[in-house]
């Protein structure tokens, strides 16, 4: 009799535990996107806008009764770091440098997916200076949005051209402040995105960019990847995998050559200029750019960037990329989608 009661108790506990586990879902999934400088309610890259425009996340989770809350952060990577630290988001795809900065500072995130690799930066200069090459920026005042992925990409561009940070005068300004300063002639050059604002108005000229360095591995460019708060991922692994699946679907859409025009139009809807985006992606292998794999090339890129940032005192602590990357979600999602062999491991 005693045995029966004990077995019944154990059985009851198992049932309660499984019911509790089955019921454990978040009420809301919070995604943070960095907004463009042109439109605050649009994300800065094509796949993220594709996800929003087609309500992919909402469709994925509506049958579970889970709300998807999307927020656009104007302050880019630094703003997203603060929002995540304040508990205002669960997932965020954004630039490599701010993600490394926050992880090194102790923000408990997991790097679970690639999003867009090999993003270019463009250097715009005042026309009246008649600068002919990047090297002529020596001694000039340059607006750079520190703390964003532009910072490390620009510092590497300096290095590639035989210059150091001390050879130029950097003014810490981002987005529209930098544009205003350049148009007023208060600075000599600006580190910008593909869209090259002010060029059409004749207020700036394109001096240099790192397009010809669009190589793989990605040492001279920046990447955009998906992070998740570690607590969320451990508590809701299935939900995390399903979010990853949505992002992989978006990358799959963008990676197909037949969708190139649609990718560009998605960026136009987000406020970018068609001709510049077309030029930016002109010689790009879309499958290589929109590649979600956490492969050896990604590991090498991030470990190299961590060492780079540590040596330049941009971060105070190093960390192991192997403990930060978590491929389990992406591997499971790729398998579910039948895309395990679509992208090439590098």
């Amino acid at each position, binding site marked *: 009799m005693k045995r029966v009661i004990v077995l019944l108790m154990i059985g009851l506990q198992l049932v309660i535990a499984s019911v509790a586990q089955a019921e454990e879902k978040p009420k809301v999934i919070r995604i943070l996107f960095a907004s463009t400088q042109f439109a605050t309610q649009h994300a800065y890259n094509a796949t993220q806008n594709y996800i929003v425009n087609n309500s992919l996340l909402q469709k994925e989770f509506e049958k579970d009764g889970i709300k998807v809350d999307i927020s656009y952060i104007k302050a880019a990577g630094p703003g997203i770091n603060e929002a995540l*630290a304040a508990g205002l988001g669960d997932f965020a795809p954004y630039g490599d440098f701010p993600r490394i900065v926050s992880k090194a500072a102790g923000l408990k995130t997991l790097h679970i997916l690639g999003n867009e690799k090999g993003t270019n930066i463009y250097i715009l200069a005042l026309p009246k200076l008649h600068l002919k090459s990047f090297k002529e920026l020596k001694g000039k005042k340059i607006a750079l949005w520190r703390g964003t992925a532009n910072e490390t990409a620009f510092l590497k561009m300096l290095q590639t051209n035989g210059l150091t940070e001390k050879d130029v005068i950097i003014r810490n300004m981002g987005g529209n402040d930098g544009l205003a300063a350049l148009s007023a002639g208060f600075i000599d050059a600006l580190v910008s995105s593909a869209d090259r604002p002010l060029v059409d108005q004749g207020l700036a000229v394109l001096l240099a960019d790192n397009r010809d360095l669009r190589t793989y591995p990605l040492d001279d460019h920046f990447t955009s990847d998906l992070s998740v708060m570690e607590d969320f991922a451990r508590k809701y692994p299935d939900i995390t995998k399903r979010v990853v699946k949505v992002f992989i679907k978006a990358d799959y859409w963008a990676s197909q050559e037949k969708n190139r025009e649609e990718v560009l139009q998605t960026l136009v809807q987000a406020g970018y200029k068609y001709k510049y985006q077309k030029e930016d992606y002109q010689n790009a292998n879309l499958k290589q750019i929109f590649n979600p794999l956490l492969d050896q090339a990604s590991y090498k890129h991030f470990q190299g960037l961590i060492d780079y940032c540590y040596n330049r005192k941009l971060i105070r602590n190093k960390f192991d990329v192997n403990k930060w990357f978590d491929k389990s979600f992406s591997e499971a999602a790729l398998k579910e989608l039948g895309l395990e062999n679509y992208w090439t491991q590098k």
Partner: protein
Amino acid sequence: MTKKLLQGFKVTDRLLGLIVPLLVLIIWQVTVSRHVFSELILVPPLTIPDTFMYLFRSGDLISHIFVSLNRVFLGFLVGASAGFVLGFGMGFSPVMSRTIKPLVKALQQVPEFAWMPLIILLFGIDELPKIIFIAIGAFYPMLFNTYQGVSSVPTSYHELAKVFDYNSHRYFLKVLIPSALPSIITGIRHSLGMAWIFVVGAELFGTDNGIGYIMIQGRQLFQIDVVMAALIVIGILGFTLNYVLQIIEQFLLRGRVSFDGGPA
């Protein structure tokens, strides 16, 4: 002798002054321990000394402080000089006072930070706009204290000067300046204090050095402990500056008596 020394230093007052900062530290630590905010946003106070050591060892903090102090003194010189000249003129000449005072009062209602966009548009983003912004902060306290001091010279002093047949030169040196000096010195102290407050605002935009820049960089690099450390440095330096000026003020005005015969 010890009793006199302690009285001189007003030990009890100093100890009382430490109570609130200690309470703040305790509340801060308790808030962190109870995880009211993320530790990455409200960093534990016990990590701040390590952050100070890190900043000192890197050499960054001292050089940035000197840059800020340099801006403070330049801005103070410009703003306080302008404030002194205008305040003196307004205090001495009722006609000038009636002419300029309404405009000055109206401009004073504009928050100083509201001037920043215009200053940047007119003067750019290099050193000049920062000095101008700091000067605006230093201007008003000096103006109004000087005006107060000069316009408050007792009538009996004027009459006495007439009795002694003082010329303008003697009147200025023997009557006006000594009478207005306490207010002027108070104006200098407040003016320099405001200049210190304004330098941080001036350095929040378009710069790559200064104590305000350290705060911005700390935020952008998600090193909130650096932001907190910079805040504490700003507070300590501002307090020290004010304290030193108070001692100088007391020294310069030692032995003075007020009009009613009591100590000044």
